[in-house]
């Protein structure tokens, strides 16, 4: 179980391969790995976004992500999980979040990964402030709903 906050650009696929390399037994036990990568779009609510600032609450953000991870482990048979989240200045196309779950079977991997991502969106203390190409700055008021 690993949680990382990154202040600079990260490569989600490299994070994954490094994680697996550090935990070689995982590949032999886990029959399923589910991965979600969220990236920053250049269009949001009808406007072109030049860049974005991701603020967080040092201490509570990590703690809340740990709590969410613990909840997922209580509900599903999770072998390992990895959450990587960007903070600070971000530009369109850059990854914001990586959530990966390893389990023996796919059902647990899919469901736990989805749970981590959806609950992160509603509970983890992060806030986005966009700067549009028009130079106007605005706070993102709320996240879109993951389930229609």
């Amino acid at each position, binding site marked *: 179980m690993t949680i990382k906050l990154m202040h600079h650009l990260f490569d989600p696929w490299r994070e994954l391969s490094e994680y697996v390399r550090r935990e070689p037994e995982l590949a032999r036990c886990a029959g399923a790995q589910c991965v979600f990568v969220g990236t920053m779009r250049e269009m949001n609510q009808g406007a072109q976004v030049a860049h974005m600032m991701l*603020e967080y609450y040092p201490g509570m953000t990590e703690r809340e992500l740990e709590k969410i991870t613990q909840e997922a482990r209580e509900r599903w048979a999770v072998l390992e999980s990895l959450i990587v*989240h960007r903070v600070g200045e971000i530009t369109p196309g850059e990854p914001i979040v990586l959530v990966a779950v390893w389990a023996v079977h796919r059902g647990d991997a899919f469901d736990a990964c989805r749970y981590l991502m959806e609950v992160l969106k509603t509970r983890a203390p*992060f*806030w986005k402030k966009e700067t549009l190409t028009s130079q106007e700055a605005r706070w993102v008021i*709320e*996240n879109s709903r993951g389930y229609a």
Partner: protein
Amino acid sequence: MTIRVLYFASLKERLGRVEDHLDAYAVRDVQEVWHRATGTPIPDGLVLVAVNQQYATFDTPVSDGDEVAFFPPVTGG
């Protein structure tokens, strides 16, 4: 004998500061912290609260040494 009050995101900008320090004797719960620190009514549903980095409510009691944080709905991921 103080309570540390933190503000984040749009709320921090609106209030024009990142934190306040209150006399712990003067406040019993989060609601009183809000009123004493900001001098404004509680915006309905637009402000979330945490006490010692755990989600709380406006009637959560507070005591000396606590860290109380106010922030808008979260938008990460």
